[in-house]
């Protein structure tokens, strides 16, 4: 298991897990839509862009295509 932080909250996921899985595990939306709706991953395979989040300071990263690593800092919303 590895630990990363989603909006400051420590989340534990299995090694090899995607960041999108960690965000869902945290129970928070990955992004807010242009009219203010909360959204989470839809396709899980890098198509829909709903899982975009800020990963280690890099904005708009497709979290379903990024492997979670120890100590990673994720910001959503």
């Amino acid at each position, binding site marked *: 298991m590895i630990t990363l932080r989603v909006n400051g909250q420590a989340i534990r996921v299995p090694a090899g897990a995607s960041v999108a899985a960690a965000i869902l*595990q945290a129970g928070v939306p990955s992004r807010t839509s242009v009219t203010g709706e909360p959204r989470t991953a839809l*396709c899980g395979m890098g198509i*829909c862009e709903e899982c975009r989040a800020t990963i280690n300071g890099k904005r708009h990263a497709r979290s379903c295509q990024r492997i979670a690593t120890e100590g990673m800092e994720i910001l959503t919303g």
Partner: protein
Amino acid sequence: MTEPVDILIVGAGPAGMAAAVAASGSSRHVILIDDNAAAGGQVWRNFTAQNTRDYPGAKALADLNTRLRNTNVEVRCATRVVGQPAANVLRVEDDQGAGDLAYRHLILATGARERFLPFPGWTLPGVMGAGGLQALVKSGLSIQGKRVVVAGSGPLLPAVAASLAKHSAHVLGIFEQAPLACLMRFALTLAAHPGKFLEGLRYRSATLAAPYRTSSWVTRAHGNHRLQSVTVSVNGAQRELACDYLACGFHLVPNLELSRLLGCTIDNIYVRVDANQKSSVPHIYCAGELTGIGGLEKAFCEGEIAGLVCAGKSAAHLFDRRNRHARFARQLDTAFAMRRDLAQLADPDTLICRCEDVPRRAVETCHNWREAKLHTRCGMGPCQGRVCGPATELLFGWTNDSVRPPLTPARVRTLANACAAAQSRKISEDSR
């Protein structure tokens, strides 16, 4: 300028992996790229050398994986194609930066995605694709004890339900929009594909506790900022089911964007290829779901053909098998054709375009896809119509065939780079 790659393959699922192994050998330079973090595509997502037995086509996967590692194929994951800066050159971007890959032969194996159809509540957190939820579970999401409704259409639904049940989810039911009569006709054709029949039985036996209903679909998802329940229409009767996740996808559509950008002829909804998997554009081959949604075996077989042909070998011994799989793909399309009722699920306030939050009310005043883009921004967001495009095809009969670079959101630096290949070509022409 760096030398062109002999064979460049886009997409490292079963088709791309099979193509790479078949194309490798002697001193040929083969590069296999994929936008996901690892090879395997969707069906073999997150496989390792130790767990290949848990996947469909386990033997083929184990064999391909071993052979791929013993070849000199260069596998580059987390790499996306952004555009075509010059003829026979693809611009790619990864986490570190961007670069251009010139090629002699190109094999496109970009696979398929789920068709998503809008209904009230479909943008709520907790509503996901069927394959989408499965992909996330394969990628580490714990679903233990969660109540899941599986809905939509296609052979993927029972497979997803089985996989979720195996991860200790509580699958409440599988709701397939196709009518029973269509599926019965389809089941009869499976006699010609005993392997697929057995696979179907295995999935079904893994989820016997969950009912499989035909002529059934989700009409509405309920919840305040998060999914709480869904209303399903089962043979015309409405029922509400409390659930944590809705896994909903309506069969698959091919990822045609790159093929379209490169000018490959599309017949109806698939890329046109000849017996050797060659597209209408010289030096470009297509394999797998791009030529017909047929699943693992078809992709595998077509990838091998494309790889062999690009390596200058004959693939004629595989034609019969490929043709059988192609027939199966057409039968799938017929069996799981979308019923018109699904076009009526979205109400005027339901968002059609999730990127730009465009409701049906705004979109349906337009006459075509282009007009909708210009007037409402439908399809203009980051996914570039990959989700709402197929939806508007079904809802309004529009064709979404306009593809422009960049194919996906890309860094400005990636777009601003001059094409090294094009420049060096120009210099050599000038000095001639």
